[in-house]
C-alpha cells in the first residue's frame, strides 16, 4: 500500500499557550518530560521540551538556521543537527563520587561535575542566562520553552516518504509510527523548529507526543501540569470556553513562533514585555530592553498588537478595573489553565450515571 502523505484532516485540535512573561527557567517542564519519555540510551541527548535563553543559540545550536522552511513557507533544504556540535551529548556526572563515597563523607569536598577526560564544549542550555546587551543600560534575556508545535500542516509529516508520521484525527497530535519508520531522518531535516529527533539506538525518529495518553484521560501534558509558574494553558483550540481560544482568538495575545514557516503551529506564546532601557544617566527611556524588531523576528508582526493588548489590560488591572485577560494570565486557580474533556470510557460511564 502506498503511503498516505497528504495533510490529515482533524476533527479537533488541541493546543498550548505559554505566557513568556512568567517563565522562570526552572526547567521543571524539561525534567517532567524527560523523566516521563526520554531516558533511554538512544534518546539521552533529546529534549522534547527544552527551555532556552533568548537572545541566544538555542537547542539544537542555531536551530533557526538549520533549514526546513524559508520565510515564505517554502521547503528549504535542511540539515540534521550533529550530536556533538549542535545537540550536545548527554553528560555523565560524578554522582557516585559525590553522593556515594565509601568513607561516608558525601559531597563535602567534591563538587558535582561532568565526568570524562575533557571538559564538555557544548550542551543543551550552554548559554543559559547569557542574553545580550550591556549592564546596566540594556542587558536582557528571556526564557523560551519549546516543544513540538503539533502543526496544522506538519513539515515532518509531509517530509516522510513512508507515511510514518501521523496527525491524530481526534486531537491533532502529531506522532511518529516507529514501527513504520526506517530512520531516514527527512523529518528531522524538514522540521524548521528542529523538534523531531533521532533515536540513535533504535534508529527511528522520535518526538513530543503531547502526552496523548494523559490528554486522553483529561490530563494536560506533564510539561504543563508540572509548571510551577502556571504559565502554560492547554485545551482545544476551538473551545470557546477554554483558555486557548480566549488567548489566541478572542484576545489575540497568544501567537505562534515563526508563523512565516507556514506550518500553522498549535503552540502559541504570549510575548515577553520588558523593562525600559536606561540612558547614560541611568534614567528609564521609552525604549524596551527587548528590541521589538527581535520579537518580530520570532513572532511576526502580530507581536505589536499582542504586546499592546497585554500592556493595556495590565494597566486596567493596575488601576483596579476588571480584566478577563489578566485574570486568565494570572491564573488564580491553575486548574483553569487546563480544559481537556476526558475520553476515558470509565469517566464517560460515570457521567452517564453508571458506576
Amino acid at each position, binding site marked *: *500500500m*502506498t*503511503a498516505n*502523505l497528504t495533510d490529515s484532516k482533524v476533527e479537533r485540535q488541541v493546543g498550548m499557550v505559554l505566557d513568556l512573561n512568567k517563565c522562570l527557567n526552572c526547567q521543571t517542564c524539561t525534567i517532567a518530560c524527560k523523566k516521563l519519555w526520554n531516558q533511554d540510551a538512544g534518546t539521552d*541527548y533529546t529534549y522534547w521540551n527544552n527551555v532556552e535563553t533568548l537572545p541566544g543559540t538555542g537547542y539544537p545550536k542555531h536551530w533557526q538556521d538549520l533549514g526546513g522552511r524559508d520565510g515564505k513557507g*517554502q*521547503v*528549504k*533544504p*535542511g*540539515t*540534521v*543537527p*550533529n*550530536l556533538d556540535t549542535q*545537540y550536545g551529548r548527554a553528560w555523565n556526572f560524578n554522582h557516585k563520587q559525590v553522593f556515594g563515597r565509601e568513607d561516608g563523607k558525601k559531597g563535602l569536598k567534591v563538587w558535582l561535575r561532568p565526568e570524562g577526560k575533557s571538559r564538555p564544549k557544548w550542551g543543551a542550555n550552554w548559554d543559559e542566562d547569557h542574553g545580550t546587551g550591556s549592564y546596566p543600560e540594556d542587558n536582557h534575556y528571556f526564557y523560551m520553552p519549546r516543544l513540538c508545535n503539533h502543526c496544522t500542516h506538519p*513539515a515532518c509529516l*509531509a*517530509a*516522510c*516518504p*513512508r*507515511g510514518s508520521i501521523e496527525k491524530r484525527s481526534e486531537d491533532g497530535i502529531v506522532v511518529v509510527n516507529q514501527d513504520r519508520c*526506517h*530512520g*531516514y*531522518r*527527512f523529518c*528531522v*531535516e*524538514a522540521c524548521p523548529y528542529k523538534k523531531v*529527533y*533521532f533515536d*540513535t*539506538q533504535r*534508529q527511528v525518529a522520535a518526538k513530543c507526543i503531547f502526552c496523548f495518553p494523559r490528554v486522553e484521560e483529561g490530563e494536560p501534558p506533564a510539561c504543563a501540569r508540572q509548571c510551577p509558574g502556571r504559565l502554560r494553558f492547554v485545551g482545544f483550540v476551538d473551545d470557546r470556553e477554554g483558555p486557548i481560544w480566549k488567548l489566541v482568538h478572542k484576545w489575540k495575545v497568544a501567537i505562534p513562533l515563526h508563523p512565516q514557516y507556514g506550518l500553522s503551529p498549535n503552540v502559541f506564546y504570549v510575548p515577553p514585555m520588558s523593562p525600559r532601557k536606561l540612558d547614560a544617566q541611568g534614567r528609564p527611556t521609552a525604549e524596551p530592553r527587548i528590541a521589538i524588531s527581535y520579537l518580530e523576528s520570532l513572532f511576526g508582526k502580530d507581536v505589536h498588537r499582542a504586546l499592546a493588548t497585554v500592556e493595556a489590560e495590565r494597566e486596567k488591572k493596575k488601576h483596579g478595573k476588571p480584566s478577563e485577560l489578566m485574570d486568565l494570565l494570572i491564573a488564580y486557580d491553575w486548574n483553569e489553565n487546563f480544559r481537556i474533556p476526558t475520553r476515558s470510557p470509565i469517566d464517560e460511564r460515570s457521567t452517564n450515571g453508571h458506576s
Partner: protein
Amino acid sequence: MATHELIAAPVGLQPGAYVKVAYAGRDQAATPAADLDLQKAGQGYRIALQWACPDPVKSIEGNTDVWVDAAAVLAPAAPGAPWITMGAENLPVVGALWRADREDLYRIDAEGLGSVRREAAPEGWRATSKYERGFWTVVFELDAWPSLRKQKMIALAVWRGDAQDRGGLKSVSQGWINVEV
C-alpha cells in the same frame, strides 16, 4: 562478473513534499557502477555484488547525522512489476537488503514507493561482506528465491552512507537485469 551502470533514483518521483524539493538536482548516482555475479547454488542463488566506496560507513550508532552503507537486490514477484517505483499496487517486488551495520539480512517486500516492509530474512538467506581497498563486496546466499526463478530478472540498489544516501536517495540499476538462472 558483469559491470552494470547505476543511475540516481529519480528524486522527482519520491513521495512527500520535502525530498523532491530539497534534493532537486541530485541526479548523479553516488555509486555509478556495480559488478554483479549471479550463480545458481543448489535450489538457490549466490549473488556477489561489488562497488567502489571510498569512504565506507559501517555503523551509525551514537550519531544523529550519519547514514550507513547498504545494498539490495530485488526481483519482481509478479509479471510487469515496475522496478523504479519498487513495484506498484498488486504488482509486488521482493528482495534482500544488506546493511553494513547488521550481520543478518532483511527481506523486503514492496508494492510502490514508500511501501517497503522490512522483516528478518528467512533462515536460508545469508550474506557475507568485506570492505577491501576501496570496494565493498557483498555476497548474498539465498537458498531459494522463487520470484527470481520465475521472473528471471533482478534489480540492484546501493546506498552510500557518506553521500547521505537513504530511502529513495540511492543508486539503482537502469532497469530490470535479465539473468540466466
